[in-house]
């Protein structure tokens, strides 16, 4: 078998050729393509659809602000609402509440409140229903 050596061979050409006059019109073709691309390129901020979409998004966000605010507020229960509910709406009575208290809660309640005689009298006189509460 004859060993093939590249360096012993005359140079082998690729065999590729371009069509006749291909390069004559090539530069015109490229420049035309460049001009077309330059015309086609419209910056994103200049597109009408993009502006319309941004405006729609801004309006939507603006409309959602009160909804979001109310949604957050409605979740917060203030003490007064809770007290009113426990007193008038719920079926829980004071004995149920007492049953739920543990030692720590009782200790926290069990504090000596130093009351001046005058203060006590003031409270008693300004709360006509206090007798009912004491008797309960």
């Amino acid at each position, binding site marked *: 078998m004859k060993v093939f050596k590249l360096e012993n061979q005359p*140079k082998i050409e690729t065999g590729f050729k371009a069509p006749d006059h291909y390069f004559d019109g090539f530069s015109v073709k490229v420049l035309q393509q460049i001009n077309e691309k330059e015309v086609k390129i419209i910056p994103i901020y200049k597109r009408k659809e993009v502006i319309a979409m941004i405006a729609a998004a801004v309006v939507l966000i603006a409309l959602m602000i009160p909804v979001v605010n109310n949604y957050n507020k409605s979740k917060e229960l203030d003490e007064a609402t809770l007290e009113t509910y426990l007193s008038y709406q719920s079926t829980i009575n004071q004995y149920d509440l007492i049953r739920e208290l543990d030692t720590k809660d009782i200790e926290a309640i069990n504090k000596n409140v130093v009351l001046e005689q005058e203060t006590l009298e003031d409270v008693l006189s300004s709360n006509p229903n206090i007798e009912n509460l004491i008797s309960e």
Partner: protein
Amino acid sequence: MINEKEFIARLLNPETQNAAFQILLSEYQKPLYSHIRNIVLNHDDADDVLQNTFVKVFQYLKNFKGESKLFSWMYRIATNEALTFLSQKAKLNGLTSEALQNKTIDNLKADTYFDGDEIQIKLHKAIATLPEKQQLVFKMKYFEELKYEEISEILGTSVGALKASYHHAVKKIELYVTSN
């Protein structure tokens, strides 16, 4: 003959840009066509890639920092465009890059713009057995007769590594042609 810096300045200046780009086109269209054609093998594909290459060159000119020579920068764009084109074409046809390359070589005989005979076809088939980088090095050195220093700037590989790569490529090609 103006120097490269001055020529780049003309390319970047809107007033002189078109005339300078015409010069760039006429100077580089033939060598870049050969470079691209050697990679994609088919004239129509080479035509597409060459046009894309010049369009990209024009678009990216403002980013050209002059760190490398204009020549190697353009060759780099052409090489990347050709390789990307090939991998996209292979994917589109559901083939591997190697399979696509072999198929194109098999069709060379019927190609109007191929003027080769048996030895050329055999050489292209032998080149197709090489890894991508070795193929590039061989084609740029053997067919395009670029200097190692130029190939080094284009591919970003050291001259030593390129010489070794070319040497391996030649050995494999000789072995393939001898045994086929």
